[in-house]
Structures are given as structure tokens and as C-alpha cells.
């Protein structure tokens, strides 16, 4: 399918002054694709040139179309010397290659220079004409759609989910080529940007080919990463889940599919929720893994993690019985695959899924988190075309993950992800996911509908099926404390569940969730090569163990019993290792109430010590009680006898109807009773343990009105309002290099994270009540004494009153014997009445207002905020509108600009159709929302326009002048956001969903007044329509009350 690429350069604006004498610029543009270059005329003496060029046409085959970016360079013409480059724009034309996405790219793009940042804007129009041809041996994969979203995208339906696709390409890093010594930093940066752009294109094309081979038509949960391996090269790798998707064509057909438009984001009730336990392994080329169970210095009643390759602290015992078991299982797993001779046979080799939320019926059971790490020494990649080593490395790890999953009685891994951490020539490869049992019918061709229905019936005890253990009770892969499911009483469940996926929509959750983090640092001697790798692989098991312990402790302290979205990041630096685990804790109704934490001293005879211990114990108990209140965790109580008996009596009312003031006492009682049964004992035998306990108690809960989670949505909050604020925050601290101890390091790191969170809560206080969703922490160690933490998240406001009410009904409904407080029972009906009456007539009016405002270019979110700004702000905006109107009528030139602006940002079709009027001509810059979530609260995504995957380098040699490191990075990140928004707007979109900043590598050299930063971001460009606007279009649609996914459970029951 060769094609014709057509490019038109319309105009520029806000160009920098390039000629000091005239304070003007003689700009022209070079348009380059592949090896062909066109030039526009020079537009003399203007900072706002109007080129209005002809259509530049490139005739290219589609392989190039996929690989190559369109490169637009703006230059200043100079008669006597070389032309000066002003900056560049790279445009990925991939979205134009499949029919359903964008048809034209047109708009204002920031002109970007790696040294100066954004320098004005250029208006470009790009189109592609594709010719069909039936070349069977084609190398291109035009037409395969890519989504970053880790669930089935909203306006599609999954026919088949084929499975794992992966690919990696390697190249030399231009920064390390010999030529870099003689070229300018700018040239070097541009070479790198271009190369990475090219490599991503190639990677995407190759993955697309694999998808076509599997007869799929899309990749969901596409995650592409760069490994900057330094001297040894540059690796671009990607994983994803191949699917066959079917577009839900008409909105009418679409709506029934998801129960309410607002909850489309998770139409899959059957996501598997819990997995418990953690398995992980390590291996490194130089360090043979020796399995041995870690001896625990506390008795844990929950499924513990099992480590192979771990020397335990107390004794370097050689592998226990468990190791044998593991080996066996691994082997059988391999055998089961029918002795396929190909180790690297692609299809179905790895039953992995990068999805974190699933279509209904897809997920049956969840086993637990499986993870594997491996320490590698980097060597130069000799032949970039055959990146076998890197492939083999990953294959090894994946194999390990697979066997872990097998050991958990699971045949698949969901919520799968891979990552690396590189320091000098050492590289830690990590992979993790959640072992799960999936409905096999989904993975094969066949009628989805039929299988769907069946599945739903089978799983009638909705909300607990996924919790049931997939493995054999008598042959458990690790010691776990099993009980009968607290929901259905039929199946066994573990007492704690860890997973990497999102909370399934049908899961019955009590109360709200919260972000739980485990943070850890370990010093490491500086070493070279193998010694270094050995040291690291020796440390890893301890770190994982401690991270796990911390998570478990914090989970118990919160009174919760399950973790979702668990992500453990281990970062390697010159002289330390950092571990950061983030997850969202919840209380699953199906799992038993967690026991308390008991502290036991080692020296029981010391009186004052005893006192100290009991003091601590009291503090812990208080905290647990407080947390239960905070997160509204008040599960129905179940008396001891009932546990284990299959069919419990309905709860006695009398006990449940207790007043709030008593409840905390009750809770402690409860804890004690559980304490007998499965005490979680912390022994304070040394200062380390002391520290642990202290750090447990230092985590401050978010201020009231704030919640946070790292999953897509917050369990227990259902009614988001439309205001969202995505942000990135970066902090770097310098450690005082003297006498660093593990404790000091831990404290520093802990403070860093806690302070960062506190700052976020403070900054976003105007949004209260709100929830920070998808909180994503990334740690890196750019230099010896520097720790860098990058956080990206989105704050979403919600309606507090409604939230309470929905939670209540939710709980009540799903747990028939729901316990509500006496007072609340009284209060609620009252509130309901008084609320619901006025709230009916009002919302429509408000929505109209909103739609009106968004038509005039003011996004609803901002509308909402402007309420706070007093009427002053409103008046201001009125002036501006007025003035702009005036300006347009007075100045002729401005009329021209208006036209181009309009042309520049054509709204997506859907948008056009659904809007009663095109956006006002005088609206300035269209608002583009960005969110790491797969949905936009209160809105419906009508179209996916293609994947956004951008890589930028920024460098400065005048760091001080640009406001120091903070000023430099602040400006750069703002610029990156701007470029993402501009690209989305040019595609006709108004939002980016599933946005992620995959890399933010920051290096500084303050002595030389220099700094450099690399940022890689990606997401899905979409068109969304406010639900209120939708209603205007299709009246038959049910009222869209902003209740996102969580309520799915209600609907299915």
C-alpha cells in the first residue's frame, strides 16, 4: 500500500527575532520525509510569516510511512552566512494510516529547538492518500490500531483477545558515536530525537505485523520504553496485547453495551481482582539463583512471598522443599507446552496480557503477583539487526514469570509489565504481573456474546469469584491462611490478596481505598562490572522481602486486606539501591477481616521496655481504629463460629447498630479477637525493627477531603464531577554524602515522598473534595548523591454527598446484611429526599450551561473553578471576549488569522456532529485535557485518533539564566505538555487519555552551567463529548449521572 503524503505549510507566528538589526526574521521552511526535502519561499522580515505554500507531495511506500516521522524545520534565511535553524517539528503520521482515526493533521505546532525550547508556532496541514495493493509480502502493518489504554477502549468491543506481542529494536546511541565529539549539542540531540522517532515507528510497524499474523487488528495496552544503555546502545522495546476489536458503530448500539455512558471506562465486570502473595525470582548471569525460603522473624499468617535466589538473613540455607516444588512446576510447565521446539515461537508463547481491566467474563480467578528480576551486564550490541541478547534476556524473564504463574495454578498473567533500571553497565530487568485463570473461550475465535452470557451466569456470586484461589488447597505453593469466602461461603479465599491490576468493577469493596507505599533504600559498595552485579543481586531479595513486609504492615495498619495496581520499582544507583512499591489498598468484602499488628519485645523482663512496647502497641491499635473510620471500613461482623462454616447466619442487627462513638472501641475489640487467631507479630529486636514501626506510624493520612490511589479509580467513590487536573511533579534531593547509613537514607527517602505528597495536597486544595488517581511515582538515581522522584497523577473532583450515598447503597445492595450506623440510617433518607428534589431540575440546567460554555471555548472544568474566582473573573472573561470581537472587526489582518485558526483545528467528526455550533471563531486555543486514566469523568469518548508517542531532548548551556534546574525543568515539562496538546488538537482531538510520562531523565552539571533532560511521553488522542451535550443529541439516552465504573457491580446483581 504505497501512499502519497501531502504537506502544506500555512503560516508561522510568534517567531523569535533572528536578525538583531531589524528585530525581524526572514523565515522559510524545509519539509523533509525520508530522503526527500521541499522548501517554502523565504518570507521576508516578519515574525508572523504567511507562507501559504503549495502542497508538497511525497510518494512513499507504507513501510516508510510507518517508520519515518515528517520533519519540518523552520530556518532564518541569511544571504551571507549559513541559514540559522529556528527549530523543528516532528509529526508522527501514523494516525493517518488507519481509516477510523484522523483524516487530516492540521493545526499550530510549537516550533521546538533542543537548546532554546519552543520558539513560536507553525501552522501545517498534512494528509495521506493510501493506494490499496495486495502485496502479500508486505513489511508494513498499516491499519493496525494502537492503544496505550490498558483496557478495551471505550468505543470498541473485543471479539478476541489474542495475547502478548513484544518486540525490541536496538541501535547505537548517537550521543555516543564518535561524530558526537565534533558536532554541536543541537545536532547530536536532533540526531537522537530523530533516531528514536524512527525506531519507535519501526517497532510499531513490526508489532503490527505480529498482530496481523495473529489475525488481530489492534494492540491494546501498548507500552513502549527506551533503555538508554549508554555506550552499549539504545534499546527501544514494546509490549502489548493483540486483540481483534470491533467498533461499536452507532451510539445507540454502543450504549447498551456499557451500562451507563459514564462508566464506559470499565465495562468489564469480571476483572479479576485479587491475587495474593508475591512470588519473585532473581537471577543474574553471574549469580546462580539458589532457592531458599526466607526465614521470617515474624509469623505471618498471610500468603507470604517466596523467593528463589535469596539467601536468608539468619542462615544461608540451601533451598528448602519449596524450591523443589518450584522447579518441578517450571519443568512441567515447559513440558506442557507440547514440547514446542521453538523457544521463541511467538504466538501464545507467553499467555501474558498487558491489560489491567477486562471485558466481562474474561477473568475467572486471580492467584497473586508474580515477578521476576534479573541483573545483567550490558555489553555493546554488535549487530543491531539481530538483537538476540536482549531478546534472550527478556525471554528468560518471561519464562520465569510464566512458571511462577503455573506454580500458582494459573495459566495466564494479567496486568503484565516490564521495566529496566540502568546504572553504568549494570542493568536490572524486571517483569511483574498477576497470575490469573482466564476464560479460555475468550482467547479463541468464537461467539463472544454466547460466552459472555454463560460466563456471567456461572459467576453468579459476583464480586467474589476472582478472589477464590485458583490453586490446590492441599498443594499450596506457599503457606497461606485460607478461609471460606466471606461473600459466597462456598470457595476458599486467601486472607490477603496482592495484584497488579485494577479493581474489578464488580468487586464488592467496603469503604474507600487508599494509596499505600513501601519505600526502601539500601547502600551498596561501589564496584565494577561483575562484582557490582553480584552485590546487586545479593541485595535484591532482601529488598523485595522488606518491601513486601512494609506493604503488608501498612495494609494491616489501614485495616484493609487487598492491594491493587501493585507496582514495585527497584532502581539501581552507583552506591545504593532504591525500592518503591505503590499500590491501592482496599477492603474486599470477600476476604476475611485483617488481623491487627502485635508488637513483641525481645527482652520481656525489662519493665520500662515493656511499657514502651505497650505504648507502641496502643498507638498502632489507635491508628488502625482511626484508619478504619477514615476509610469507612465497617464490615459486617462475623462471629468466630461462623468462620469456616459454609452458610453464615445473617448478621444480628443489634450488634451492627452501634453509634459512631462506640465504634472505635469495638474495632479494637475486634482486633484483639483476631489477634488470637492470626496475630501479625512484629518483633522489635533491634533498632531496625524499631525504625520500621516508627516509619509505619509516620505516614500521615491525606488531609480531609483528599483521597489517593494509584489505580484508575478510587474504590468507594462513584460520582466524579468533571473537573480534572493532570500534573507532573519532580523533586531531586541531594544527600549529604557523609556517613550515610541505611536508616538515614530510608528516612530521607521517606521524607522526600511524604513531603511531595503533602505538597500535592496543598497545591490542589482548591479542588477538595477530590481524589488523586493513578498516582505514579518513579524513582531514579541520576548521580551519586541525588535522588529524583517524579510523580504524575490526576486530581479529579467528586461530589461528596452523592459519594456517600452511592457507597452506602452499593454496600447495602451487595451485602444483604449491610451494616449501617443507626444515625446514618436516620440521616440518610432525609438527605436523600432533600437532595434529590432539587437535584433533578438542576443538573440539566447546569449541563446546558456547561455545554454552552464549552462551545464558547471555556472548558467546563474551568467553568467550575471560576466559581471560586468570584464574579471578577467572569467579568474579565467578558471583556476579553468583547475585546476580541472588537479586535476582529477593526483589524483586517486578524480576520485572516481567525480563518486559519478555525481551519487549523478541525474538530473531529464526532465532535462536529454533536456540537450544536462550531467553536466560536474567537476562541483562542482549544483546551486539550490530559489524563493518565482511560476515561474522562462526565464525558464519553467518541473516537480514538491514534497513539501519541513523543520523545524530546532539551539541553541548556545557560542553566542559571533559565532559572536554575527548577526553572529549566519546569519550562521543559510545560513545553512537553504544550507539544502533546498541540498534536492532539491538530489531529482534531480534545483530550489525551492513558497519558504516561515514561521517562524523565535529568542530568545537570551546575559547574558548567549545563543541564540536559530527556522526556518520553505517550497516550491516546481522543475526541470526547460531554455527557450533557450527548443528551442533547440523543434524547433516548438514559440520564447520565456521573457514576463511573465502580457501580458496575450493582448493575449486574
Amino acid at each position: 500500500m504505497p501512499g502519497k503524503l501531502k504537506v502544506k505549510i500555512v503560516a508561522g507566528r510568534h517567531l523569535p527575532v533572528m536578525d538583531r538589526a531589524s528585530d525581524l526574521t526572514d523565515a522559510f521552511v524545509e519539509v523533509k520525509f525520508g530522503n526527500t526535502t521541499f522548501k517554502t519561499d523565504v518570507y521576508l522580515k516578519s515574525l508572523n510569516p504567511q507562507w501559504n505554500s503549495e502542497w508538497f507531495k511525497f510518494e512513499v511506500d507504507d513501510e516508510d510511512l510507518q517508520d519515518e516521522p515528517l520533519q519540518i524545520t523552520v530556518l532564518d534565511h541569511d544571504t551571507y552566512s549559513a541559514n540559522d535553524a529556528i527549530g523543528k517539528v516532528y509529526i508522527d503520521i501514523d494516525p493517518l494510516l488507519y481509516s477510523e482515526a484522523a483524516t487530516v493533521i492540521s493545526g499550530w505546532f510549537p516550533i521546538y529547538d533542543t537548546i532554546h525550547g519552543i520558539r513560536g508556532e507553525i501552522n501545517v496541514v498534512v494528509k495521506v492518500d493510501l493506494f490499496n495493493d495486495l502485496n502479500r509480502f508486505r513489511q508494513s502493518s498499516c491499519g493496525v490500531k494502537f492503544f496505550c489504554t490498558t483496557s478495551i477502549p471505550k468505543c470498541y468491543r473485543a471479539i478476541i483477545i489474542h495475547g502478548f506481542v513484544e518486540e525490541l529494536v536496538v541501535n547505537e546511541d548517537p550521543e555516543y558515536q564518535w561524530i558526537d565529539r565534533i558536532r554541536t549539542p543541537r545536532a547530536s540531540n536532533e540526531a537522537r530525537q530523530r533516531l528514536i522517532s524512527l525506531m519507535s515507528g519501526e517497532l510499531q510497524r513490526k508489532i503490527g505485523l505480529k498482530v496481523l499474523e495473529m489475525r488481530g487488528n489492534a494492540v491494546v495496552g501498548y507500552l513502549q520504553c527506551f533503555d538508554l544503555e549508554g555506550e552499549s546502545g539504545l534499546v527501544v522495546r514494546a509490549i502489548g496485547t493483540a486483540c481483534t476489536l470491533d467498533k461499536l458503530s452507532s451510539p445507540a448500539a454502543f450504549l447498551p453495551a456499557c451500562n451507563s455512558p459514564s462508566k464506559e471506562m470499565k465495562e468489564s465486570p469480571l476483572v479479576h481482582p485479587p491475587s495474593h502473595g508475591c512470588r519473585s525470582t532473581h537471577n543474574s548471569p553471574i549469580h546462580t539463583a539458589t532457592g531458599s525460603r526466607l526465614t521470617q522473624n515474624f509469623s505471618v499468617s498471610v500468603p507470604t512471598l517466596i523467593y528463589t535466589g535469596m539467601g536468608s538473613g539468619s542462615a544461608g540455607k540451601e533451598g528448602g522443599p519449596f524450591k523443589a516444588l518450584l522447579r518441578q512446576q517450571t519443568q512441567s510447565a515447559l513440558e506442557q507446552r507440547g514440547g514446542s521446539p521453538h523457544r521463541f515461537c511467538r504466538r501464545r508463547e507467553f499467555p501474558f496480557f498487558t491489560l489491567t481491566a477486562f471485558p466481562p467474563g474474561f477473568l475467572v480467578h486471580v492467584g497473586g503477583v508474580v515477578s521476576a528480576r534479573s541483573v545483567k551486564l550490558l555489553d555493546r550490541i554488535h549487530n543491531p539487526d539481530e538483537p538476540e541478547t536482549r531478546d534472550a534476556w527478556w525471554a528468560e524473564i518471561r519464562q520465569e514469570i510464566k512458571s511462577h504463574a503455573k506454580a500458582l495454578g494459573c495459566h495466564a498473567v494479567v496486568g503484565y509489565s516490564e521495566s529496566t533500571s540502568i546504572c553504568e553497565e549494570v542493568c536490572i530487568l524486571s517483569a511483574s504481573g498477576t497470575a490469573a485463570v482466564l476464560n479460555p473461550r475468550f482467547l479463541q475465535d468464537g461467539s463472544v456474546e454466547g460466552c459472555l452470557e454463560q460466563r456471567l451466569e456461572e459467576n453468579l456470586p459476583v464480586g467474589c469469584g476472582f478472589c477464590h484461589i485458583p490453586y490446590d488447597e492441599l498443594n499450596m505453593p506457599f503457606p497461606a491462611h485460607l478461609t471460606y469466602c466471606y461473600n459466597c461461603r462456598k470457595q476458599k479465599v486467601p486472607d490477603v490478596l496482592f495484584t497488579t491490576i485494577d479493581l474489578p468493577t464488580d468487586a464488592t469493596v467496603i469503604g474507600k481505598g487508599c494509596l499505600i507505599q513501601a519505600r526502601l533504600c539500601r547502600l551498596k559498595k561501589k564496584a565494577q562490572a561483575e562484582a557490582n552485579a553480584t552485590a546487586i543481586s545479593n541485595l535484591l531479595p532482601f529488598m523485595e522481602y522488606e518491601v513486601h513486609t512494609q506493604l503488608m504492615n501498612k495494609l494491616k495498619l489501614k485495616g484493609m486486606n487487598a492491594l491493587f495496581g501493585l507496582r514495585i520499582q527497584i532502581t539501581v544507583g552507583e552506591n545504593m539501591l532504591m525500592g518503591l512499591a505503590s499500590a491501592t489498598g482496599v477492603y474486599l468484602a470477600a476476604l476475611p477481616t485483617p488481623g491487627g499488628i502485635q508488637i513483641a519485645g525481645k527482652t520481656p523482663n525489662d519493665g520500662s521496655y515493656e511499657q514502651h512496647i505497650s505504648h507502641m502497641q496502643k498507638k498502632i491499635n489507635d491508628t488502625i481504629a482511626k484508619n478504619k473510620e477514615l476509610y469507612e471500613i465497617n464490615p459486617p461482623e462475623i462471629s468466630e463460629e461462623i468462620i469456616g462454616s459454609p452458610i453464615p447466619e445473617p448478621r444480628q442487627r443489634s450488634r451492627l447498630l452501634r453509634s459512631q462513638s462506640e465504634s472505635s472501641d469495638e474495632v479494637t475489640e475486634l482486633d484483639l479477637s483476631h489477634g488470637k487467631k492470626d496475630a501479625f507479630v512484629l518483633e522489635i529486636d533491634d533498632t531496625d525493627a524499631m525504625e520500621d514501626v516508627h516509619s509505619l506510624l509516620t505516614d500521615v493520612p491525606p488531609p480531609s477531603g483528599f483521597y489517593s490511589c494509584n489505580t484508575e479509580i478510587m474504590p468507594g467513590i462513584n460520582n466524579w464531577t468533571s473537573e480534572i487536573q493532570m500534573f507532573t511533579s519532580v523533586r531531586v534531593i541531594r544527600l549529604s554524602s557523609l556517613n550515610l547509613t541505611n536508616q538515614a537514607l530510608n528516612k530521607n527517602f521517606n521524607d522526600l515522598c511524604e513531603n511531595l505528597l503533602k505538597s500535592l495536597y496543598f497545591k490542589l486544595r482548591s479542588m477538595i473534595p477530590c481524589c488523586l488517581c493513578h498516582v505514579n511515582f518513579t524513582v531514579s538515581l541520576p548521580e551519586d548523591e541525588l535522588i529524583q522522584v517524579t510523580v504524575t497523577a490526576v486530581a479529579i473532583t467528586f461530589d461528596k454527598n452523592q459519594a456517600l450515598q452511592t457507597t452506602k447503597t452499593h454496600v447495602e445492595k451487595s451485602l444483604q446484611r449491610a451494616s449501617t450506623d443507626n444515625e446514618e440510617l436516620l440521616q440518610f433518607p432525609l438527605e436523600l429526599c432533600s437532595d434529590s428534589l432539587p437535584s433533578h431540575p438542576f443538573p440539566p440546567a447546569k449541563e446546558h450551561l456547561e455545554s454552552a460554555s464549552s462551545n464558547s471555548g471555556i472548558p467546563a472544568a474551568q467553568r467550575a473553578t471560576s466559581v471560586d474566582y468570584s464574579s471578577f473573573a467572569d467579568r474579565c472573561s467578558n471583556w476579553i471576549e468583547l475585546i476580541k470581537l472588537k479586535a476582529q472587526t477593526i483589524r483586517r489582518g486578524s480576520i485572516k488569522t481567525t480563518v486559519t485558526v478555525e481551519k487549523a483545528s478541525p474538530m473531529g467528526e464526532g465532535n462536529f456532529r454533536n456540537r450544536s455550533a462550531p467553536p466560536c471563531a474567537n476562541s483562542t486555543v482549544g483546551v486539550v485535557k490530559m489524563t493518565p486514566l482511560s476515561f474522562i469523568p462526565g464525558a464519553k469518548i467518541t473516537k480514538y485518533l491514534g497513539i501519541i508517542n513523543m520523545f524530546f531532548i532539551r539541553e541548556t548551556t545557560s542553566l542559571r539564566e533559565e532559572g536554575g534546574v527548577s526553572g529549566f525543568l519546569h519550562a521543559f515539562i510545560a513545553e512537553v505538555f504544550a507539544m502533546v496538546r498541540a498534536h492532539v488538537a491538530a489531529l482534531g482531538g480534545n483530550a489525551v487519555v492513558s497519558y504516561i510520562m515514561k521517562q524523565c531523565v535529568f542530568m545537570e552539571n551546575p559547574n558548567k552551567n549545563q543541564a540536559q533532560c530527556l522526556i518520553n511521553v505517550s497516550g491516546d488522542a481522543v475526541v470526547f463529548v460531554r455527557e450533557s451535550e450527548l443528551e442533547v443529541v440523543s434524547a433516548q439516552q438514559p440520564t447520565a449521572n456521573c457514576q463511573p465504573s465502580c457501580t458496575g457491580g450493582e448493575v449486574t446483581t
Partner: protein
Amino acid sequence: MTSELDIFVGNTTLIDEDVYRLWLDGYSVSDAVSLRVRSGILEQTGATAAVLQSDTMDHYRTFHMLERLLHAPPKLLHQLIFQIPPSRQALLIERYYAFDEAFVREVLGKKLSKGTKKDLDDISTKTGITLKSCRRQFDNFKRVFKVVEEMRGSLVDNIQQHFLLSDRLARDYAAIVFFANNRFETGKKKLQYLSLGDFAFCAELMIQNWTLGAVGEAPTDPDSQVDDMDVDLDKEFLQDLKELKMLVADKDLLDLHKSLVCTALRGKLGVFSEMEANFKNLSRGLVNVAAKLTHNKDVRDLFVDLVEKFVEPCRSDHWPLNDVRLFLNQYSASVHSLDGFRHQALWDRYMGTLRGCLLRLYHD
């Protein structure tokens, strides 16, 4: 442990109005932090001083980056780097261009030059406004002045168009530009009782009636408004004002004028006798002011003269404002009945504006 780098970037740029005000007022980060602490924000939010410090730094950095755009507000609207809701953009602009009354009274009518800029130190000490804030305000005046100085068309409209200010603020700027251009003296002690509002009112009247733009001969075709300049007084008109001199030079005319006014006002004025006694002085004062306007120097002293020649004498006789109004109305109207006086139109153009100004200037 020291924080090397600490930033927060939102997809929608966060603007904290309180911090913006502190920044505009020229406080340093540490001063701003302690002022915020004093406002009790820590207690309200449970934040720590470190959080406040980091937050303040962040906002200051953002404002610093925005400042470049605020210098040309239309750029703020079209730029892509900061996504800011229109209402917030308007707020940013409006507040950036807002000024302190105390400051503006110090520089009103002064040449917006480097020399004046050097005096900002003194102004800062005198008014208690931080030097930084003084500089911003001064630079704002200068910037607006430079942009609209040579422009045709309505001064207020031009300012609004290029700086997207509210009507009210644009009018104030028009006055400031007009005063700076004509260098009216406003700093004299006897003028201290006058506010910017008083001057702005006069400026507006003068712009409407005494400038080239006021003639408005060909308003239909914007390109032909070669001379429609709002910032410069109509030189020809000023020259013509000499003709008014006969009103006081010609004794008969003066007497006639006086008798006309007195007849009309008898019984209506509380201060009739004072008026009658002072009529000639007042009339001479007003007409002489007109006649002197040919000289730039005297133009500058316009307000001093008005206060000296008219406001002060009346005030010393305790004229009520209403009597002043009645007198001025009658005084200007009666000229129409003076048969020997041919410059009626000129008189109206002069006196119409002057009457408005005097009434505004006449207070304590």
C-alpha cells in the same frame, strides 16, 4: 538533605491569586512565605512551612515565565505553553496592569524616561510600595505608552485591543498616557488633593474634545484618519484660543458678560455677592488660561492654573458645588448672547470641557 529541584507542572496552569498578589507587590519568596504564614494558611490547611515555601517558589517561577507573555497580552491568549482558562487569563492581565494610586500620583504627567525610572527608589521609599512593584508599574505605563503613542484611533480602544484590559483600567491608562504625553504638572503641593480619578476624568474630556481625534472629520474610513491622534492636543485649536482673549480684554464685552450672568443668577446663588465681586477675576483667570495654552510650558501648568485661578478663590469664599455648577453653566451660556463675540464654537469647545474639569476639580 537539600532540595535541588522541586517543581509542579499542571496541564492547566495553577494560579494562586494570593500568591500572585504577593508577587505583583514585589515581595521576595521568603517575604511572601512569611506573609502567607501570617495569614494563617498553615493552620487552615495543616501544611508545613516547607510545603508553603515550595508552593510559593513554584508559583513565583510560573509567574516569572508568564511575565514575558504579560508584556504583550494577546500573546498570552495565543500561546500554547500554558493552558489557562480565559477567565484566569483575564485576571492575570488585569492584575498585572493594575497599579497603586499612590504610585501613579507620583509619576502622573512625568516623562516616562530613564530619568524618572531612576527616581523610583525615592518613590518606593515615599509610598512604601516595593521597588520591584514600582518598576513593574512604571514599565507597564511605559510599555502601553510606547505601543499606543503613534497609533491612530481611539486611545482607549487601542489600549484595550493591545493589552486586553477592562474598560475601566483602559480608561485609566488612556489618562496616564495622555498626561505623560502632554506632561501636565500634577505633583505640585496644591494639586495633592486631587486623585487619579479626577485627572482621569479631565483627561477623558480633553481627549474627547481637545485632541485631533476629537475633530473626527472622516470617521467612516479608518485609513483616512491620518490625524486622528488621541494623545496630542489639537495645536490649531490651542492657537485659536487666543481669540477668546477679547472676552476679558474688551471691557464692554466683559461688563456685558458679567451683567448677563448676574441677571440670570440673581437669587439663585447662595454666594451671589461673592460671585458678583469676583466675576471679573474669575473670568480673566479662565480666559487667560485659554490664551496661554499656545505655549507648551503653560499647557503643562494647566491644572495648576485652574486650581489657582478658579478653584482656590471659589473655595476660599466657600462656594457650594452647586453654585459653582450654576455659575459655570451660566457663564458659558451667556457668551452666546454676546453679539460682538464671533467665536462661539471655539468657546463651546473650550468651555464645555473646562466646565466639566472644574466641577470635578472642585472639592476639598
